[in-house]
């Protein structure tokens, strides 16, 4: 499956890694939902690092769409707790 790290690259992650990726993501989500800022940054960094090391970077000119999009690496705990909104390039 293709995973995009917002603000960075897209990675082709083997389907066999999906389970572990899910676990890492749930660890992050549990901290956010439980309001436990402690360890959030490390857990999130570990999730992104897993994608970067287990996935193969997709070429810049590849037009493949992502199955999963992860928020940017400088995501704050506060941001993780709310919706990603804003007009951005494409108006709503």
């Amino acid at each position, binding site marked *: 499956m293709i995973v995009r790290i917002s603000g960075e690259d897209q990675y082709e992650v083997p389907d066999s890694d999906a389970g572990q990726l899910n676990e890492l993501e749930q660890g992050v*989500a549990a901290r956010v939902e439980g309001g436990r800022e402690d360890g959030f940054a490390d857990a999130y960094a570990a999730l992104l690092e897993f994608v970067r090391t287990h996935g193969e970077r997709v070429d810049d000119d590849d037009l493949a769409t992502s199955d999963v999009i992860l928020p940017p690496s400088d995501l704050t705990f506060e941001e993780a707790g709310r919706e990603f*909104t804003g007009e*951005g*390039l494409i108006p709503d």
Partner: protein
Amino acid sequence: MAGLTGRMSTVVKAKVSKLLDRAEDPAETLDYSYQKQVEQLQNVKKGIADVVTAKKRLQMQESSLQQSVVKLDTQARQAVSAGQEDLARTALERKNVAQTELQSLDGQVTELEDQQQKLTDSEQKLRAKIESFRTKKEVIKAQYSAAEAQVRISEAATGVGEQMADVGLAMQRAVDKTENMKARADAVSELEAAGTFDDITALGSGEDDIDRQLKQLSNQPAVDSELAKLKGEVGAGDGAAAQIPAQSESPGAGAAEPAPEDAHQASSGDGQT
């Protein structure tokens, strides 16, 4: 995947599908998409230029604050020479605040440099995808029937659209950050112009007056020790200056003698209370 990645994906995909819903005819989709892509690339360039402008503004403020630090230091020395300890203390306190502000500005400039780099990288990726779309568009036009073309165009446009949505989110974050910094920078400039540096601490986010008073207390020893050091330096300078006439005029040297003595007593008195 649920939770935070699910939400992020939903937001981006919603933006992409809105972008693609604009046109139904394949030929129109092609032209519309490509034209839109090139337009957005210009917007990204503008976004990067805005970040650079914000960074330059902060750098100008940094150099202005650096001048203030030098000026306040000079004023503190002059005040010590004139025996105006309270005035010297005020100048040193403001210098302390200005230096803290300088450190925070330094961090902000670094952050903006980081944003600028990220946006530039994203712009390059978007450019590569748009170029790839342009090539594909010609192939699709030449080789496929309308029905097939629709599917292939939609796939290709979604790929570009996703990159565009992602750059858009990155730009939004950069704009939010620079706006926060600009608001603070403007407020600091005003306070600086008014000469009321002490109030800068009141601009800190999420600080109440107790935090500020605690911070002032923790700055106090630094101000005290700097004042004592200044007195030592100025005192030593006076001593050296006084020694020259002392060889020809002994009463003058005697009159200059008590000044450093008083200063020493005053600072040791502060230390006890």
